[in-house]
């Protein structure tokens, strides 16, 4: 299987550029080890021997990890992230490290210091970001599944753009130990897969308490595959009217409304709800996130990692400066503190909604995958791509993107959001949708 995946990579990687590093020698050793384990009947995990790709912001002992930045060009981590250790224990075959926007700051991979990943559905378009390499690799069969990270939509948006499944778990469900930090109160690692069932299988493996991450919650993780039932009769599904407001492409809105009708046809009760704070989420996010960025990236001081700060790209510099300004004396109360208060209101608004509904659905991205270069000179327009995903991070909720159709030959993702720790409800609704209305289209490669 690893050979088959590398065969795909040989043909498609020059066109798609999903990887920053291919680990073929390591993969061969891991595949041989997995073969032996399977042959001896010593398999402890369902994932043994299955080729996977890892976003290059997750540290891997002995394997170069760059976070898409020139500042870490020569960085070989001395330890592994907990999620990677878990996969290694499970017998993963690592195909390589995938491309991303520098330090996961972006929505298109155009901010990568190395290359721009192409969308497998249309090479002139972006795959989304920041986990664009991870999503494109899975969409193009250059990995069976991958890991991404999501700070403001960085798993769900590229999954939507590439027509695959992407899950952001509840904050605290998956250890962040070894995830190169961007905004510590928002970051979360999750799977990017070809099906909903696959996402449940990967989450089963990576979820759970980790004493190395003080924000990882000591709470039992259920077997997520037990929620994979194709029936949602009676489920209460909330549709926020604000998710179809200004800036949402009409074709995207139509595709999502069709998906909602389909859920209704399965017996779900559709309830219109209101989340008026949605309009404030981008402003809040672009104060809290850069503030945490400015603190987290101060470790790249030109001494500890050996590279000069001149090697930061423009988007990283912009966010460090924005954050430093928002946290500075005299401005802290007006910007960061106020944003933190509104963040609480956003969280409370979701809590209120989940008293009435089981899950909330809407679009992942307000627009279809955009052309490479189309938004790169307009940061504000790029930031608006996150408008429907950042509220979920601010509230620490779980959310998934599943493909629900094509518009002009490009995939559209349906976002399903649940209350804290209720990934099971997401899997139920997502699986029911997928089983009853399967998305069979594949990019023509």
């Amino acid at each position: 299987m690893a050979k088959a995946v590398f065969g795909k990579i040989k043909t498609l990687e020059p066109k798609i550029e999903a990887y920053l590093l291919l680990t073929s020698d390591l993969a061969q050793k891991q595949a041989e080890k997995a073969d032996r384990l399977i042959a001896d009947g010593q398999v402890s995990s369902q994932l043994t021997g299955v080729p996977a790709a890892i976003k290059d912001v997750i540290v891997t002992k002995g394997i170069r990890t760059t976070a898409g930045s020139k500042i870490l060009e020569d960085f070989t981590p001395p330890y592994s992230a907990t999620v990677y250790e878990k996969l290694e224990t499970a017998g993963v075959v690592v195909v390589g490290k995938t491309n991303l926007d520098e330090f996961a700051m972006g929505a298109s991979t155009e901010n990568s210091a190395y290359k721009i990943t192409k969308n497998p559905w249309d090479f002139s378009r972006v795959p989304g970001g920041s986990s664009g390499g991870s999503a494109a690799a899975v969409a193009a069969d250059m990995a069976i599944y991958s890991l991404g990270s999501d700070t403001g939509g960085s798993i769900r948006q590229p999954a939507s753009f590439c027509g695959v499944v992407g899950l952001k778990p509840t904050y605290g469900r998956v250890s962040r130990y070894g995830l190169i930090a961007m905004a510590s109160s928002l970051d979360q690692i999750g799977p990017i897969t070809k099906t909903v069932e696959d996402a449940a299988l990967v989450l089963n493996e990576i979820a759970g308490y980790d004493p190395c991450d003080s924000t990882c919650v000591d709470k039992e993780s259920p077997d997520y595959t037990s929620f994979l039932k194709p029936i949602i009769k009676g489920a209460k599904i909330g549709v926020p009217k604000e998710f179809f407001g200004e800036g949402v492409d009409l074709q995207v809105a139509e595709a999502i409304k069709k998906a909602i009708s389909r859920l209704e046809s399965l017996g779900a009760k559709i309830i219109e709800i209101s989340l008026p704070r949605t309009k404030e989420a981008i402003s809040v996010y672009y104060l809290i996130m850069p503030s945490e960025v400015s603190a987290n990236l101060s470790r790249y001081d030109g001494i500890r990692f050996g590279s000069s700060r001149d090697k930061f790209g423009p988007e990283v510099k912009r966010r460090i400066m924005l954050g430093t300004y928002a946290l500075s004396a005299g401005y802290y109360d007006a910007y960061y503190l106020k944003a933190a208060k509104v963040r609480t209101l956003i969280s409370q608004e979701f809590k209120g909604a989940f008293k009435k509904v089981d899950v909330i659905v809407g679009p992942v991205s307000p627009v279809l995958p955009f052309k490479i270069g189309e938004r790169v000179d307009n940061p504000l327009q790029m930031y608006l791509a996150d408008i429907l995903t950042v509220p979920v991070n601010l509230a620490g909720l779980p959310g998934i993107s599943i493909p629900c159709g094509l518009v002009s030959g490009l995939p559209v993702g349906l976002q399903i959001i649940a209350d804290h720790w209720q990934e099971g409800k997401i899997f139920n609704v997502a699986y029911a949708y997928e089983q009853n209305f399967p998305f069979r289209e594949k990019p023509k490669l």
Partner: protein
Amino acid sequence: MELAKLSLKEAITGLKSKKFSQTNWPKRFLEKLRL
């Protein structure tokens, strides 16, 4: 069926059925008999 196109679930099923049914079950079966 191209192996790279498999989903994770299909890959899991495929790996197990191929390895266990074609090569290893007999060996493991014989080992159990010896025991």
